[in-house]
């Protein structure tokens, strides 16, 4: 459908104005709380690896691995979707949310088989993030290189 007619515009504006608004303050607080908790947990894991004698840079890898495992585990146990419903961006943005976005479709589409199900659809949600994340990283890298040349 192309442009909306005047009647459609009027209705859409009227209906949108009457729509219940998302509870912004509650959502922001929930995101802050849960996102903060996930990051604090990540920091604790990082500190643990550092206490084993790694430096901060070396400890980053295993910390990410632990957090991904945790996100994947909670997705498999059917808990992460509930956390997400409550916390919104607070549990989407951290790396645990990234794990959730890959494990959830993998679980979901297992019934269509390992090739056309899991294989083809695992990156349904994460795919766009990867594509545009990598593109952005590449562009930023290019600018950095040009500026420092």
């Amino acid at each position, binding site marked *: *459908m192309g442009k*909306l*007619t005047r*009647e*459609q*515009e009027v*209705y*859409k504006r009227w*209906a*949108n104005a*009457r*729509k*219940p*608004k*998302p*509870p912004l303050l509650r*959502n922001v607080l929930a995101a802050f709380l849960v996102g903060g908790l996930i990051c604090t947990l990540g920091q604790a894991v990082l500190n643990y690896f550092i206490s084993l004698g790694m430096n901060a840079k070396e400890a980053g890898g295993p910390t990410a691995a632990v957090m991904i495992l945790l996100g994947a585990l909670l*997705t*498999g146990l*059917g808990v*992460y*979707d*509930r*956390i*997400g*419903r*409550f*916390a*919104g*961006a607070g*549990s*989407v943005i951290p790396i645990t*949310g990234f794990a*959730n*976005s890959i*494990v*959830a*479709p993998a*679980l*979901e*589409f297992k*019934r269509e088989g390992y090739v056309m199900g899991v294989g083809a659809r695992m990156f*349904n*949600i994460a795919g766009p993030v990867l594509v545009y994340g990598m593109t952005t990283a590449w562009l930023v890298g290019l600018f950095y290189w040009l500026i420092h040349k």
Partner: protein
Amino acid sequence: MGEKRVGRNTIIFSQPPAIVATATTVGKKEGEGPLAKYFDQVIQDSLYGESTWEKAESKMLLESVQRVLQKANYTFDQIHFMFSGDLLNQLTASSFAAREIPVPFYGLFGACSTFTEGLALGGMAVDGGFAQRVLVGASSHYQTAERQFRYPTELGVQKPPTAQRTVTAAGVVILESDGPGPYLTAATIGRVIDMGINDPMDMGSAMAPAAVHTIIQHFQDTGRKPDYYDLIVTGDLASVGKNLAEDLLKKEGYDVTDRYTDCGILIYKPDADTQAGGSGCGCSAAVFCSYFYPLLQEGKYRRLLLVSTGALMSPTTYQQGETIPAIAHAVAVERDYPEEMG
């Protein structure tokens, strides 16, 4: 030809078919809602002992069909047609259930309006003398709809307050040329209305104008006023769409506020999962079959207008930026056999 039709969109059945029996099967969450005690069966596991949710939905429909036949004491041989539909691509929930049902089968797609679409067509088949007895059913399932239309079910996303939850339910009725009521007395067939809403998380706003159009058309065609009915029930506008529909009707001079409700609101306790309320083919089917049908039999309600509402989009169309066309079909169900026709 002529005496069965009034106005532009309405059929008045000359020999109103009787709804002789109903059966419902619903999911766990529906079984925890305010209508819990009315359902025939509540399944505790969304897979219902099957390997996929799609199979589970078919099984819910099949078992509802078997149950309704049992209640009315009929065998498959005595049923002349079955009309049924669901939300899945190529109507697999219905047609896969129908593999086990040796009855001439019509698969219907009207999105969540399927139940009243089926009642209208089934009513025409019976009143027209083409069948003595027909089955009409509809089903939907939260997980099968979610994975087809939205996100994987385990994805942690927050839903806006306009979102609705697809009801896990199957509802089936038997329509028969004679029998004890309630009776299907009239049907108003809706046309497709698109008022420019393109947010699939706000189907209430997309469907409200279609419901309003059909309800007003029904009043105009029949010359009835809202007070002819004890209750006007829309299918799944939920809280957002119901408010809009009420106001749109009021603007057109039809105040229905004291006799209007919506199946999508009745079926759930409101929470973060359900947001505005329920949706899906099974929503109006299960609420009518389990809750309103016995109330009509008892005479708590004498006349009811059921208006199932459907949003006719697919994941392809909304990803391509199309707006959401909607449809609504109304059926009048009355406890008493109408004395004077027309």
